């Protein structure tokens, strides 16, 4: 290896750059890619992790027990300013209820609490501990909690408190309101994207203007605004109550880290200040981008070798696999990496905020989260019964929209007042270019007469570009097809990184095998490869197992699910360091494979809806989870088998694989198939 500062041709220097930018943070990038890819199904994962909810069945609006749901809301949140009902949908068959408290005198008291809670603590370990007591103090005033809460943070806190797990809480949005929740939480998520402290500040920000206002109707308007923009529109903030949509019975899901842990890990890691986590991920993203661009330059025959994949040719095959998984999904890799950078943009390059907002982050976030321009109604103070025929309104709205558009959530403002307004929001984003506008229709809550559609919010070009990238990155899409495509592309990206990492060791295998002992650097990369690739898969499987094996009633159980993940990962690292590399690959891949393959059985045995049942009842998301687990398990076991059978032809890398290619079907967990230094066909 040459030193980096000697003069050399462009391609060579790019090659150097590609190798090292890819390797240095490659292990982290692999974990980011895998957890991020799984995040496309985080609602489904969270749902799977709450077997108590599995038997709910998505039904069309006319079969939903709205009367019971409204009665329950009336009982639980009589004075609320806003109720939100998240309707069953393909990504979550339950009916979610949430509310936002009416404004009250306590408002002033709460900000402090809201502020200390926010994002920060949530991202950390102690959240679990801190949440409950704040819950206690907040419970009596559900109202002030939601009022003060500006962004999601507060909401999360509260939910988390209730379940003693902030993760769970923060999962709420996702968990309870699949698409619509994601979408709804979008504006608030902007807030979330901001560095840790931001969350807290956001809180302060949102509540500050409010406090300075008179508490009359003006404040009401403010609160309303805040609820929609900052609070993530109610629905996203998360239901506090989950109902079986048909019977209207309450369902108590266990506290779980859910898919949300994986989601948050992929952009802010865990166990450190979230701002640090985001910086680390942000820097890794820059490395990724550098590796992508330099990789394109390095690739000599990008078009000639476009479809080329030759199995059974050792190093050559690894290179082919690396090239194919990179080039064929290059648009995805570029977009996902670049949009990831844009999401971190205001953190990593704060210049814009400094110049345009004089460094006032609050103003910036406020502008980014500006609520939809929707007419704000004010309570009249006069009581009037709320109509209960929501199904009829929903049918009317869906008729008006036509084109198969569905209502995703129902937001009722000032329930019980003469000025009550029922807003029906669409389940899905109409497209990528509409920004944060979710079409909705408004009706009088007393007479049911239509009040018109919500006015779309104007957005600047910058906002529009930003939101397109954001939507693409997160896959807020209506239908399963785009989501699966993103997921599979993500799998391809993970394969790309994994094959690149493995290639590093293969390319250097000869040199080291000549030496009597393996160079420590080589050995280090090998060990890290095993632990980061096969070990991560096993750790994710353990995370799912922990979800079912940790008693449902245990306090802080959600945190233990996360601890189980990291403990398992650490064990894998130690194991990889202690074993010979081939044995370590085989054992870890086999371990992960068995754990994944048995997940459907575990699901059936621990109270979940078993595969035959979920197929029979058409609960697609459970079927999908179980099948993905089976496919992943099979892929991992196959990979383990191939490594096990492999006999190196020469001393260096010999025959490669065909199973390692970015196979379109396998779950993300299949990537370990890749890493086997040598494998497959020939060798076997």
């Amino acid at each position: 290896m040459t030193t980096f500062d000697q003069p050399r041709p462009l391609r060579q220097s790019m090659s150097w750059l590609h190798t090292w930018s890819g390797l240095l943070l490659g292990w982290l990038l692999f974990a980011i890619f895998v957890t991020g890819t799984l995040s496309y199904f985080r609602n489904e994962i969270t749902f799977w992790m709450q077997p108590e909810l599995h038997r709910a069945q998505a039904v069309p609006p006319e079969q939903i027990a709205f009367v019971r749901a409204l009665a329950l809301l009336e009982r639980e949140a009589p004075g609320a300013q806003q109720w939100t009902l998240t309707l069953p949908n393909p990504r979550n068959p339950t009916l979610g209820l949430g509310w936002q408290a009416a404004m009250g005198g306590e408002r002033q008291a709460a900000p402090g609490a809201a502020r200390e809670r926010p994002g920060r603590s949530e991202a950390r370990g102690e959240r679990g501990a801190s949440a409950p007591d704040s819950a206690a103090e907040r419970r009596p005033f559900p109202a002030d909690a939601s009022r003060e809460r500006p962004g999601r943070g507060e909401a999360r806190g509260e939910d988390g408190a209730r379940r003693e797990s902030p993760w769970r809480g923060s999962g709420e949005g996702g968990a309870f309101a699949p698409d619509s929740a994601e979408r709804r939480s979008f504006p608030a998520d902007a807030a979330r994207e901001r560095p840790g402290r931001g969350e807290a500040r956001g809180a302060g920000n949102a509540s500050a203007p409010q406090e300075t206002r008179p508490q009359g109707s003006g404040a009401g308007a403010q609160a309303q605004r805040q609820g929609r923009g900052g609070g993530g529109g109610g629905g996203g903030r998360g239901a506090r109550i989950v109902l079986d949509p048909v019977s209207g019975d309450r369902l108590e899901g266990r506290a779980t880290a859910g898919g949300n842990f994986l989601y948050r890990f992929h952009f802010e890691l865990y166990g450190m200040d979230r701002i640090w986590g985001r910086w680390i991920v942000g820097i890794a993203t820059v490395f990724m981008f550098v590796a992508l661009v330099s990789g394109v330059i390095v690739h000599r025959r990008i078009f000639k070798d476009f479809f080329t994949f030759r199995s059974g040719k050792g190093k050559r095959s690894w290179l082919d696999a690396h090239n194919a998984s990179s080039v064929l999904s290059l648009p995805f890799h570029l977009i996902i990496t670049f949009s990831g950078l844009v999401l971190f943009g205001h953190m990593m390059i704060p210049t814009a905020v400094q110049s345009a907002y004089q460094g006032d982050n609050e103003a910036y976030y406020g502008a980014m989260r500006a609520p939809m321009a929707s007419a704000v109604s004010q309570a009249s103070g006069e009581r009037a019964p709320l109509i209960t025929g929501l199904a009829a309104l929903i049918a009317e709205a869906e008729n008006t929209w036509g084109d198969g558009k569905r209502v995703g959530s129902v937001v009722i403002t000032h329930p019980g007042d003469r000025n009550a307004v029922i807003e029906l929001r669409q389940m899905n984003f109409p497209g990528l270019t509409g920004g944060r506008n979710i079409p909705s229709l408004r009706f009088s809550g007393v007479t049911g007469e239509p009040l018109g559609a919500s006015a779309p919010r104007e957005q600047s070009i910058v906002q529009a570009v930003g939101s397109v990238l954001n939507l693409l990155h997160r896959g807020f899409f209506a239908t399963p097809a785009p989501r699966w495509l993103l997921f599979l592309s993500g799998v391809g990206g993970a394969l790309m990184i994994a094959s690149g990492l493995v290639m590093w060791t293969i390319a250097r295998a000869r040199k080291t095998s000549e030496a009597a002992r393996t160079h420590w650097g080589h050995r280090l990369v090998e060990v890290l490869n095993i632990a980061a690739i096969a070990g991560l898969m096993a750790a994710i499987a353990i995370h799912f197992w922990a979800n079912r094996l940790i008693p449902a009633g245990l306090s802080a159980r959600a945190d233990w699910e996360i601890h189980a993940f990291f403990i398992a990962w650490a064990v894998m690292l130690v194991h990889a360091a202690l074993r010979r590399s081939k044995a370590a690959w085989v054992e870890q891949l086999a371990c992960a494979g068995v754990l994944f393959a048995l997940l459907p059985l575990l699901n059936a045995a621990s109270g979940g809806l078993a595969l035959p049942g979920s197929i029979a009842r058409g609960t697609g998301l459970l079927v999908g989870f179980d099948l993905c687990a089976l496919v992943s398990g099979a892929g991992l076991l196959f990979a383990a088998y191939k490594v096990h059978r492999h006999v190196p032809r020469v001393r260096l890398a010999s025959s490669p694989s065909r199973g390692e290619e970015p196979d379109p079907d396998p779950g993300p967990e299949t990537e370990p198939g890749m890493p086997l230094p040598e494998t497959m066909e020939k060798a076997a």
Partner: protein
Amino acid sequence: MNILSLVLCFWGFAAISASMERHAKDIFAAVGSLRVRRLRLLAGYVLLALALPPAIAVHGLSIGIAVWFGFLAMASTALALVLNWRPVILRWALF
């Protein structure tokens, strides 16, 4: 419509691959004339373009384009695997 778009993508890429010497040899056991290969290339691009409208029809313009890119990635990956595994089976779909 999703399936149609995906199939068109695959078919288009198959035709493009058949316009390349190496793959043409794998598929047809003969390189073929330059003219035929150019024709395949053209047909391939046309097929890829034809895959776009169905995607847009299902998903709307913006998401449709994104989905089309996704299909392109999936189809080309699948093709690369087929070319390595049994290139001959592509024969019936090409000229």
